[in-house]
């Protein structure tokens, strides 16, 4: 038995049957991380001592038959923009190189209550701004399927860690596709839940009206299970979670999907989409039809405007959210400042990387006097039109389907794509963020170069259960479970 190949559900059964101890699981995974993470570079911070100590406490509880918690003894990797009490939380930025939060994010509290064991904090694009994991101040993560390729981003460390068998599940965050695109690139399952499904308390904010925490796993059932455990109203804290939620996603996951109707917007298979991706998605469409579902082509006329709208809104919100990094209360402080104004400017100038500065500057410009109407207001109006497109389609169809990303993972040494072309790759994931609907990426094929391709399933607000039902049935017809187990991570 290779412990690194086990899913969340399999680990749960084996730990409960006392076939393995929590400490054996944790130690086996650290062994694998130590062997391969020098190449993959998924983790920024490893919490080995704390994890093994906690796992040994759980061994004791296992021996006493006191195995409380749905994730008892099951390891997790946490994206480094989710605050973890007393554990370095950097947002992959020099700005937070020394930041040890004094409290846990709600999602962390929930995982701890379920007795999950955190192995460490995983890499990301700096402040989640990017889609390659290259803007990290600390390291560039690699794709376990091909070390020359990006794992995607911004939750690239989360997806790479799950694909590499370092952890059975990880948490990522998704503002414009940052859970789904890396899940697609790494051949794993990633969910961007409904806006408000999961509390954002303790998530270091990028764009508050778009951000959402979501699970990355190797199977659909694992994903549904983890989302059940981290979602729900967080009554103690502010406004970040929706009330009166039904958080049962697993019951009925095996229901027949025949008779369901899916919409495939023809703009989702436009000229910008790689042929390999189009082919895999059309094959996925046939698989869904073979399960008795009906798939129609529809129009989503405003899709071509979503990238503009997204960058204006996300950058505007970022410019406000990142004002909190003042060099005074936490994080990096410049040593070259002679007065307070210099302290702000030098700390921020030296602490933030280029991509973060660009977005703060863009957001500040967009919100500044004379430009608000031209940019921000138009972007918010376009957001309404996209939401109306999505609602119009979902009033006739169960789900919207399409590719997750326009391309498979790109090679790092490929010539850098300039300007907005790089940003345009997010065009297919952005609609779910702008409109707040849930969206899942599951593997649906491989390119000729053996790189995974993701299928995106978009549902209406709070309809994650339906998405998981369809994804689970689809997964039975196509999955990469065996291929993931065979990944050699560069070794012969």
């Amino acid at each position: 038995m290779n412990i690194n190949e086990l899913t969340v559900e399999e680990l749960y059964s084996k730990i409960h049957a006392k076939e393995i101890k929590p400490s054996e699981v944790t130690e086996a995974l650290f062994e694998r991380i130590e062997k391969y993470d020098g190449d993959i570079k998924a983790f920024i911070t490893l919490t080995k001592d704390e994890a093994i100590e906690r796992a040994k406490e759980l061994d004791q509880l296992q021996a006493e038959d006191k195995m409380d918690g749905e994730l008892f003894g099951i390891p997790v990797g946490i994206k480094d923009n989710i605050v973890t009490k007393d554990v370095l939380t950097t947002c992959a930025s020099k700005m937070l190189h020394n930041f040890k939060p004094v409290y846990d994010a709600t999602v962390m509290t929930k995982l701890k209550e379920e007795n999950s064991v955190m192995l460490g904090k995983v890499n990301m694009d700096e402040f989640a701004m990017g889609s390659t994991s290259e803007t990290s101040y600390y390291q560039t993560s690699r794709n376990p399927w091909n070390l020359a390729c990006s794992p995607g981003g911004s939750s690239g460390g989360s997806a790479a860690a799950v694909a590499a068998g370092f952890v059975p599940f990880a948490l990522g965050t998704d503002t414009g596709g940052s859970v789904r695109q890396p899940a697609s690139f790494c051949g794993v399952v990633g969910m961007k839940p409904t806006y408000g499904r999961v509390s954002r308390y303790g998530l270091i904010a990028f764009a508050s009206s778009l951000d959402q925490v979501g699970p990355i796993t190797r199977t659909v059932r694992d994903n549904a299970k983890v989302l059940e455990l981290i979602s729900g109203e967080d009554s103690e804290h502010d406004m970040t979670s929706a009330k009166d939620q039904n958080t049962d996603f697993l019951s009925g996951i095996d229901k027949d999907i025949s008779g369901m109707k899916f919409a495939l917007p023809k703009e989702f298979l436009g000229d910008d989409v790689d042929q390999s991706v189009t082919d895999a998605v059309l094959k996925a469409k046939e698989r869904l039809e073979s399960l008795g579902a009906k798939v129609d082509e529809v129009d989503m006329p405003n899709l071509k405007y979503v990238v503009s709208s997204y960058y204006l809104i996300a950058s505007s919100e970022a410019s406000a959210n990142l004002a909190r990094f003042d060099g005074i209360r936490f994080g990096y402080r410049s040593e070259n400042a002679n007065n307070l104004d210099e302290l702000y400017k030098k700390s921020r100038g030296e602490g933030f990387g280029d991509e973060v500065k660009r977005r703060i500057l863009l957001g500040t410009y967009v919100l500044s006097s004379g430009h608000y109407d031209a940019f921000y207001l138009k972007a918010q109006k376009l957001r309404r039109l996209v939401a109306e497109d999505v609602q119009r389609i979902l009033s006739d169809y169960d789900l919207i389907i399409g590719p997750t990303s326009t391309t498979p993972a790109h090679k790092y040494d490929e010539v850098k794509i300039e300007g907005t072309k790089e940003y345009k790759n997010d065009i297919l994931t952005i609609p779910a963020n702008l409109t707040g609907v849930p969206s899942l990426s599951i593997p649906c094929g491989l390119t000729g170069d053996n790189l995974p391709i993701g299928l995106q399933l978009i549902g209406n607000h709070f309809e994650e259960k339906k998405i998981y039902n369809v994804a689970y049935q689809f997964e039975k017809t196509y999955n990469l479970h065996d291929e993931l187990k065979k990944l050699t991570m560069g070794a012969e």
Partner: protein
Amino acid sequence: MEELDFDRLRHVANLSKIEIKDDEELKNLSTKIQSIVKHAAQLEELDLDGVEPMTHVIDVENKLREDVAGQPLSQDEALKNTVSKEAGQFKVPRMI
């Protein structure tokens, strides 16, 4: 639409409290920002009159809690992550 030239960008950096080291950095930051601003001009081709701007994607209402004193962060905890403190306070360079 007013062009986002270097002077304008320096002004925006000043508003953002971000020091730009030199012209090279300014140029490096400017290229991508310019291309996004240019691309965003496509929104002008849309007729958006009468469209309500969307600020919330789901129905939300304010949550209020009872006005009861809770346990906030202690002073020690609040100061734990600062680089410089003195007498239980954040310490900064002199302002005047």
